């Protein structure tokens, strides 16, 4: 075969790989071992982890530990769902399509928007797609990124824009939640991207910002890092958002070591032609019976090629299914109660931490996560408390290493946080700081 394609050795096929990336010599792994020995070795390695469910756990910053009912896992593993392929053929895919349609309906209702797509990879990539969409809608290139936007969302937006002539104005991290973006909006601004609650936990009334955006012909993009907050907070759509993106992991999906996650994407209907991703629509068949199909596909790459609105050719099918089943099990009332419980536990945690000498809670408002200022570098505090069996949260320096915010700690609480967990965190921190 090598002769047929005109090369001497297999290595010649890899000449384009930079030398620095080429593996020299064998991989540093022990030799073959029996199944039992491998299992034993891996179990020992796994035991070095401190799993979220085994200790008081206050880690959030964009990924949240929630209780996922056992029914979710059971239902998503039904082979009709689990093995279903892309529903290009509606005549054999009504089940998959109906789930997508219901998912979209839920996302639209949660975000307060008119249309939602069948999902994206995660909150960060959905956010980057929202910026590109705003550029298409406005035919402008300048985006203002709030200092309250998750640093990883910002990073993904910047990576995408870099190769598409995007011009991002990224604001400094806004730990205290006081930034004013209105003066940054001009006639060249395609969109303003804010997060609500912000990365630091602050909640904002976005109506004045939406108004300021629309006055200059710019769009307001709102990112939601914690979907459960939508059970308690005014949805972005009701505050004038044009595009809403969110991380949907909180519903139906475990922490999963950071992925796969679930990007939610919703917009005002007038922009539907510029939306990225797959859309499922409701229709009727020849006999007038209700049915579902993929629709407006001319936005997509398999039809529009390089002129497609996005190069996403898929959706997070199984994660969105889990989301829809979990939310259906909760129902509207259950979802509100879940949100209220999250907020109550976070309030209890904030009250307890505020009572620790030397600790200040920076937030006037928050949902289930807030920022505290510590008298020591937060990363050191987290390490020390981890040794004592408490996972205290995410040091801001972990995601914003050179921002001079080393004394800030993000603390999240959910319905899985018990009163005992909060007491344990308070006591451990008090002892450590005294």
């Amino acid at each position, binding site marked *: 075969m090598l002769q047929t394609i005109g090369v001497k050795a297999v290595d010649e096929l890899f000449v384009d790989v930079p030398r620095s990336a080429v593996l020299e010599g064998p991989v540093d792994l022990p030799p073959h071992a029996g199944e039992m020995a491998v299992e034993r070795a891996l179990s020992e390695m796994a035991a070095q982890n401190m799993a979220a469910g085994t200790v008081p756990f206050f880690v959030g910053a964009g990924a949240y530990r929630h209780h996922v009912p056992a029914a979710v896992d059971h239902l998503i593993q039904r082979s009709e769902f689990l093995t279903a392929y892309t529903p290009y053929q509606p005549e054999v895919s009504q089940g998959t399509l109906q789930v997508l349609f219901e998912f979209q309906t839920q996302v639209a209702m949660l975000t307060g928007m008119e249309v939602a797509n069948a999902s994206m990879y995660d909150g960060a990539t959905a956010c980057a797609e929202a910026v590109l969409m705003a550029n298409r809608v406005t*035919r402008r290139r300048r985006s203002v990124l709030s200092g309250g936007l998750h640093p990883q969302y910002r990073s993904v937006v910047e990576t995408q824009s870099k190769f598409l002539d995007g011009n991002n104005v990224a604001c400094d991290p806004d730990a205290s939640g006081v930034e004013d973006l209105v003066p940054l909006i001009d006639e060249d601004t395609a969109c303003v991207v804010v997060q609500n609650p912000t990365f630091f936990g602050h909640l904002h009334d976005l109506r004045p910002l939406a108004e300021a955006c629309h006055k200059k012909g710019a769009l307001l993009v709102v990112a939601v890092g914690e979907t459960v907050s939508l059970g308690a907070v005014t949805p972005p759509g009701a505050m004038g958002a044009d595009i809403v993106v969110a991380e949907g992991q909180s519903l139906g999906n475990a922490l999963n070591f950071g992925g796969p996650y679930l990007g939610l994407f919703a917009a005002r209907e007038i922009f539907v*032609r510029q939306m990225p991703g797959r859309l499922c629509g409701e229709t009727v068949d020849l006999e007038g019976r209700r049915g579902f199909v993929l629709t407006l596909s*001319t936005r997509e790459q398999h*039809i*529009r090629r390089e*002129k497609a609105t996005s190069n996403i050719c898929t959706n997070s099918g199984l994660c969105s299914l889990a989301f829809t089943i979990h939310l259906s099990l909760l129902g509207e009332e259950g979802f509100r109660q879940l949100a209220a419980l999250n907020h109550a536990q976070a309030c209890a945690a904030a009250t307890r931490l505020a009572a620790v000498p030397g600790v200040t809670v920076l937030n006037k408002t928050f949902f289930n996560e807030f920022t505290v200022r510590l008298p020591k570098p937060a990363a050191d505090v987290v390490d020390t408390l981890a040794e004592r069996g408490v996972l205290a949260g995410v040091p801001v320096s972990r995601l914003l290493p050179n921002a001079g915010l080393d004394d800030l700690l993000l603390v999240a609480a959910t319905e899985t946080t018990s009163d005992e967990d909060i007491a344990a965190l308070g006591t451990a921190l008090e002892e450590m700081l005294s």
Partner: protein
Amino acid sequence: MSEVRFTKDHEWVRVEGDTATVGISEYAQEQLGDVVFIELPNVGADVEAGGDAAVVESVKAASEVYAPIAGKIVEVNDDLEATPGLVNESAEDQGWFWRMEIADVDEIEELMSAADYKAFLAGLD
């Protein structure tokens, strides 16, 4: 006095004084089938000859509409937003896409006359 010229990409251009009106040909609308959506250029935008200016989407396909000549867009046919089917009903009249200033009159001369276009279409079959 106005004269209609055509491109190989099936756009037509009608020159009236300093401006040109552009649309897609009767042949193009027939090939596309029912038109369901049209994305028009921004008024004030400068387009290049042969550059993307609009998108026409039918039940069969989505296609680019190219600017036959260079110039500035001065008006777009807003009626197409609500009734894209105008392109099927009246491709070379009511279904016009945009009006533009003519940057270079010579570019018009390079386009096909109605008779040339007819011959060109005959060659396609």
